[in-house]
C-alpha cells in the first residue's frame, strides 16, 4: 500500500530520444495560462520547467501609483477565485498602521464572508481536480452549489466575483435581512453535496488509483519550498494561521485543522491534498455556523471607515490564511496617501514552485493531476 510508483529514470540503456512537449499556455488543464515545458521519455516525465508571466499586469508597481482605497479592487484580481480572502490582509495591514479599531460586528462579517469564499474556492479546486481526472459530473454539481454562495456575496457586495467589499475599519455595506438564513441554507447544501461527492468521486476506486501515491510531497520538501495551505497540510504538517497565529476573532471558534493522514496511500500524495480540502469545507461550515450565532445584531459597519487614509511612515507585514495558503502583504509607506512599495506573497506562486520537484518520474497523465492538486490561480502567480 505504501509502495510509491516512481519510475527509475535511468532504467533504460536503450538509445531513445526524449521528447519535449509544451503544455500550455493554451491547454485545457493548466488552470489558466501557465506554460509547462515538459521533457518526457515515452510517457514518463523527466523534467518540468514552468514558464510564468503570461498574465503579468505589474500589480505591485501599479499599486505605487494609486491611493490606498483604490488598491482594494486590484487585490481582488490576484486570486479571483477567493477575492474576499485577498482583501483581508491588506485591509488589516492598513488598520494596524492607522491604529483603527474594528467593530465587533465587522469582524464577524469578515469571518463569515471569508469562510464562504473559502468554501467556493475549495469547491472549484476539488471540482477541477476531478475534471483533470476525467470526471466531469462532480464539476457541475459543485458549480451548482457555488452559485448559491456567490448569490449571497453578490447581495452583500454587488459583484459576483471581484467583490471590493472590505474597507479600512469596516465594510462597504451592512448585511442584508435574511443573511443568516441564506448562510445556513448554503451550509446545508455544501454538506449534502460533499457527501455525494465523497461517494461519487473521492472514494471512487478509479480516482483512488489515479491519485493515491502520486506526486508525493514529503513534509521536509514542503517546508523547504515554503509551501502553505492545503498543500502543506496534505503532507501532514499541522500549520494553519487561523489556529497558530489567530487574527481577527478566529480564536473564539471551535474548529480543527485537518491534515493528510494517508487513508488510501502515503501522506502527501494528490489524494491527501484533495482530501484536506474536502475536510476543510466541513470546518468552514462549522465556523460559519458558530459565527452566525455569535455575531452581534447591532453594530455600525460602515461608520468607522476613515475618510482619508494616510498612514504614518513605516512598514508592516501581515499574513492570513488564504484558501490556497499563506497570503501576506508587505507594505512600506512614506507618509503620503500612496504606498511606497506593496509586496504580495501569494500562496499559488510559492506552491507552484514545488511542481518540478514532485512530478519527475511520474507519468505524463500524473503531471496534470499533480498540477491540479496544487490548486493554483494564474492571476496570483503572475500578478
Amino acid at each position, binding site marked *: 500500500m505504501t509502495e510509491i510508483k516512481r519510475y527509475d529514470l535511468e532504467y533504460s540503456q536503450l538509445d531513445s530520444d526524449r521528447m519535449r512537449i509544451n503544455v500550455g499556455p493554451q491547454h485545457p488543464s493548466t488552470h489558466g495560462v501557465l506554460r509547462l515545458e515538459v521533457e518526457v521519455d515515452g*510517457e514518463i516525465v523527466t523534467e518540468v520547467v514552468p514558464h510564468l508571466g503570461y498574465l503579468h499586469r505589474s500589480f505591485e508597481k501599479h499599486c505605487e501609483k494609486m491611493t490606498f482605497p483604490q488598491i482594494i479592487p486590484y487585490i481582488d484580481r490576484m486570486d479571483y477565485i477567493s477575492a474576499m480572502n485577498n482583501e483581508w490582509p491588506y485591509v488589516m495591514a492598513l488598520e494596524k498602521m492607522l491604529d483603527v479599531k474594528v467593530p465587533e460586528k465587522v469582524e464577524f462579517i469578515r469571518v463569515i464572508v471569508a469562510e464562504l469564499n473559502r468554501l467556493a474556492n475549495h469547491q472549484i479546486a476539488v471540482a477541477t481536480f476531478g*475534471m483533470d*481526472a*476525467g470526471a466531469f*459530473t462532480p464539476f457541475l454539481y459543485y458549480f451548482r452549489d457555488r452559485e448559491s454562495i456567490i448569490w449571497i456575496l453578490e447581495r452583500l457586495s454587488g459583484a459576483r466575483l471581484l467583490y471590493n467589499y472590505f474597507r479600512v475599519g469596516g465594510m462597504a455595506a451592512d448585511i442584508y435581512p435574511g443573511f443568516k438564513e441564506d448562510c445556513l441554507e448554503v451550509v446545508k447544501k455544501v454538506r449534502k453535496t460533499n457527501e455525494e461527492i465523497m461517494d461519487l*468521486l473521492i472514494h*471512487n476506486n*478509479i480516482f483512488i488509483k*489515479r491519485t493515491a501515491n502520486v506526486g508525493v510531497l514529503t513534509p521536509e520538501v514542503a517546508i523547504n519550498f515554503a509551501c502553505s495551505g492545503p498543500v502543506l497540510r496534505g503532507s501532514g504538517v499541522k500549520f494553519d494561521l487561523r489556529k497558530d497565529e489567530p487574527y481577527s476573532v478566529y480564536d473564539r471558534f471551535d474548529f480543527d485543522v485537518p491534515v493528510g493522514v494517508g487513508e488510501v496511500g502515503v501522506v502527501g500524495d494528490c489524494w491527501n491534498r484533495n482530501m484536506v480540502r474536502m475536510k476543510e469545507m466541513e470546518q468552514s461550515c462549522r465556523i460559519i455556523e458558530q459565527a452566525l450565532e455569535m455575531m452581534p445584531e447591532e453594530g455600525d459597519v460602515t461608520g468607522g471607515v476613515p475618510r482619508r487614509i494616510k498612514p504614518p511612515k513605516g512598514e508592516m507585514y501581515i499574513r492570513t490564511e488564504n484558501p490556497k495558503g499563506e497570503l501576506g502583504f508587505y507594505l512600506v509607506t512614506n507618509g503620503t496617501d500612496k504606498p511606497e512599495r506593496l509586496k504580495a506573497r501569494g500562496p499559488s506562486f510559492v506552491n507552484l514552485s514545488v511542481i518540478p520537484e514532485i512530478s519527475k518520474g511520474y507519468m505524463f497523465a*500524473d503531471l496534470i493531476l499533480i498540477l491540479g492538486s496544487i490548486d493554483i490561480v494564474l492571476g496570483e502567480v503572475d500578478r
Partner: protein
Amino acid sequence: MESTNFIWDLMGKNLWSVVAVISLPLIFVLIYALVAILAELKVSAWIQERLGPMRTGPWGILQPIAEVIKLLQKEDITPTAASKILFNLAPYVIFTGAYAAFAVIPFSEAYAPANINVGLFYIFAVGSFSAIGIVMGGWASNNKYSLMGAMRSVSQVISYEIPAAVAVLAVVVLTSSMNMMEISRMQEGGFWNWYIFGGPGGWTKIFMIPFTLTLAIIYFIASLAETNRLPFDIPEGESELVAGFHTEYSGMKFAMFFFAEYANMFVVAAVVTTIFLGGWTSPFGSFLAGAGWGAFWFILKSMFVVFLQIWIRWTLPRFRVDQLMYIGWKVLLPISLVCFIAISFFSLLNLG
C-alpha cells in the same frame, strides 16, 4: 434456407437491390448518429441536473442537426507540416471500419445486410481498422499530442481485443457457430435463453450463468476501451492530450471522427446484444415476435447498451495508460480465460 434479407425477396438480385442493401445501413447510421448525439447531450444533462440544449426546436431536438451544419461550415485546415495524404485519408479509414461492421449485424430475422458464416470474426477484423485510422491520423498530424494519443490507442487496442475475443469465443463454443444470425436464432424463446443467462438448455445450465454473466461484463468493459470512451478514453484524454489523435482536425474531417465514434458505439452495442442479449429475439418468447418486432427489439436492446456507455462516461474518472493495460492483461484476460475454460468444460459435458 430461408432468406435473411428481405430486400432480396422483394427486389430480386439486381443492381438496384444491391444499392438498396448497401445504403440501408448508411441511412440507419445517419439517423442513429443524430439520435445518439442528442441522447449524449440529454442524458449528460439529466445526470448533471442541467437542461441540455433547449433552443433548437422543441426541447432542443434539432441540436445534432445544428451541430452537423456548424461543422460543415468550418474551415477545413490541413497543417503545413502534416503528411497530407495520410492526414486526409485517416478519418475515412476510421469511418470505413465502423461502417463495414454494419454489414453483418442481424437487425431482424428478415434483415442482415450480409449473412456470412464468420460474422463475429469479420467484426473483429474490421474493428481493428479504427486503430489503423487513429495511428494514421495521429502520426500524419505532426503534433506531439496526436502522436502520443495514437501510440496509446494502439497499446489499448492490443490489450483489449484479446479479452473481448476470448469472451466472444466462449459463446462460439456454446453455439458452434460464428454466424450472427444463427447465434441470435438459438436464443429464441424468452430472455431466459439469452447467453448472458447461459443460453438455451435444461436446468443444469445454471452452473454456467456466473461464467457467461462475467464474460458479458468483460466484453462490455473491453468494448468501452475499443470505442475510446471513458473510463478508457486515454487516446483522446482531454485533460492530458488536448484532444489526442484528432487535435489537428477541424470541420468535416473532425465530424467524421465524431461520427465514427458513435457508429463504433453502436457496433459494439450490437455485438453485445447479438451474442449475450438475444439479438432480435423477443424477451417474452413468442409474444411480440416477428420480423418487424425483431428490428424493434434489436434496436431497443442496442440503444440500451449505448445508454449504458453514455451513463458510464458521465460518471467515472479516467484510467491512466499503465493502469489500463494492467487491467487488460492482468485482470480481464485471466478471468476471461478461466470462464472460457469452464464453459468449454461444461459444453463437453453437455450441460448447456
